[in-house]
């Protein structure tokens, strides 16, 4: 329309198809942010995503870049193999909490410790989503899941795993940050972190990870709006937001 400027639209590399995510789920927002950053950095030609086992396994149906699906937990090992062969590509894994902090912990820590020049997008919603809401390594103390019907008991189940804090001491990690997608402000912050992580990879600095606290209405058994409240009250106190590590060499 005359005199009006288009200020928002579908990102170029987010396919124009309906997605399978539940209403209020954080994945679709995170997909959108990835597509936007890939467009802004102009890296669609060399970006490769390794989607996980979990709800986001179908990411290749939505984000218009090359992808190779990995076995549950093995994303960063697959990324290592790919990046070593294609050092000028932007290789990133997209992993959930079970994938990354339970079954794939060894692969994550060692890829990070080797300083593999890859990025991990870590979607932390505190439950196993696709399998129906079982306890995850990041389920918070007291949180009810299908396998912790009385709430997570740290004496029996251990306390939640804090992955940014866990990886920060490793020399191979160069960018670690935690944010959420439950508010417009945080969505903008998350996008900024994703961009910083990819930029760090483009400078070949080492391992980068963005941990995103994300809503899972179906398994939390909360409405989308209530989910945002749970992120505020239930998750952020356990998983403080912010940059955990940033070792940046200015681009020459």
């Amino acid at each position, binding site marked *: 329309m005359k005199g009006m400027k288009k200020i928002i639209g579908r990102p170029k590399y987010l396919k124009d198809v309906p997605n399978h995510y539940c209403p209020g789920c954080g994945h679709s927002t995170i997909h959108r942010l990835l597509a936007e950053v890939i467009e802004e950095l102009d890296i*669609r*030609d*060399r*970006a*490769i995503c*390794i989607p996980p086992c979990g709800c986001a*396994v*179908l990411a*290749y149906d939505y984000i*218009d*870049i*090359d*992808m*190779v*699906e*990995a*076995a549950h937990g*093995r994303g960063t*090992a*697959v*990324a*290592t*193999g*790919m*990046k*070593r*062969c*294609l050092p000028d*590509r932007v290789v990133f894994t997209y992993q959930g909490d079970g994938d990354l902090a339970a079954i794939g912990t*060894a*692969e994550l*820590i*060692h890829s990070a410790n*080797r300083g593999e020049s890859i990025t991990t997008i870590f979607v932390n919603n505190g439950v196993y989503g696709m399998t129906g809401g079982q306890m995850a390594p990041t389920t918070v103390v007291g949180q009810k899941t299908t396998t912790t019907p009385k709430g997570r008991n740290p004496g029996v189940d251990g306390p939640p795993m804090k992955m940014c804090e866990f990886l920060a001491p490793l020399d191979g990690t160069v960018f670690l940050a935690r944010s959420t997608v439950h508010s417009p402000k945080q969505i903008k912050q998350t996008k900024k972190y994703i961009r910083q992580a990819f930029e760090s990879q483009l400078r070949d600095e080492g391992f980068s990870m963005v941990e995103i606290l994300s809503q899972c209405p179906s398994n939390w058994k909360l409405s989308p709006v209530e989910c945002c409240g749970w992120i505020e009250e239930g998750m952020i106190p356990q998983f403080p937001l912010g940059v955990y590590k940033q070792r940046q060499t200015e681009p020459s």
Partner: protein
Amino acid sequence: MKSNEKVLLRGSEAIGEAALRAGCQCYFGYPITPQNELPEYMARRMGELPGRTFVQSESELAAINMVYGASATGARVMTSSSSPGVSLMQEGISYLAACEFPSVIVNIIRGGPGLGNIAPAQSDYFQATRGGGHGDYRCIVLAPGFLQESVDLTYRAFDLADEYRIPVLILGDGMMGQMMEPVVLPAFREDLPKKEWAITGAGKGKSRFIRSLLLDVHVEESHNWKLYRKYQRIERREPRSDSYAVEDAELVVVAYGTAARIAKGAVRRLRARGVKVGLFRPITLWPFPAKALAGLAESVGRFLVFEMSMGQLVEDVKLALNGKAEVELYGRPGGVVVTPVELSRILSRRYNAMRHEA
């Protein structure tokens, strides 16, 4: 080391050097006895050659998934391990088979089950020839019997892997890995095949993906049919075997790898005494050389399967012969290596009993 000249190499070095000459760009592996000389050789040699990647992984699980990632980009890639480590790799091998990612996996088998020991064994025959991991799939399985064959088969393994887009297993044991023999090395490959399917970033084209999640049962079924047809093609085209002194043999030993070396020694001793025994040696364990073996049953009435495991190879022999001949098993599990003299006594006894029956 020059090509086309005889050099004396250790078994593990022979495999490593042949792989490098076949164009193996990446090696990923985790230490386990008795195959450590192979990753050590790769670490050293890959540092000397341009464009090679060596990573010591944190586990066999990670190693096989690094293989998966590298293969997805179109690189020629290898890993090696020994029995317990290869068990850990089975998940990844299933995914390699499902996604049709070419790869070469060396299993220097040790006695088992469990932690077992580090002595030569053949007890991973079923695991290798029946897929090993979950789902309907096969891997090409090569079993060299001497070091020149280790070189030739390793060199060929990378071509087979690329041609059929399939994981290829090379089976050996500590004996094959440690012994030294003269070998002639092939030239370095420079004309590596182009792989249009490889995932390397979309460039200016359409984005692509490779996956093994096929939720629609009909899509999964047709993928399985596609794999099955490929396996049938391999079964028609790729079986390989060797035989020794079978022309007038009345009793033929069936054995592969180290067991075949021992058997050849035993057959040679008995032949010197006029005992009519021979040897049939499968070189590909999958596809099993069933046709060649069944052909032998036209003239041979009795076969003795000698395996360093307890009743694994014998199943394929029985399937191949399908009742056409008598089949007996002499298995020695647990890492025991019998001598040719011992085996010749066993053979001689069976031979005499057979003559007595007749």
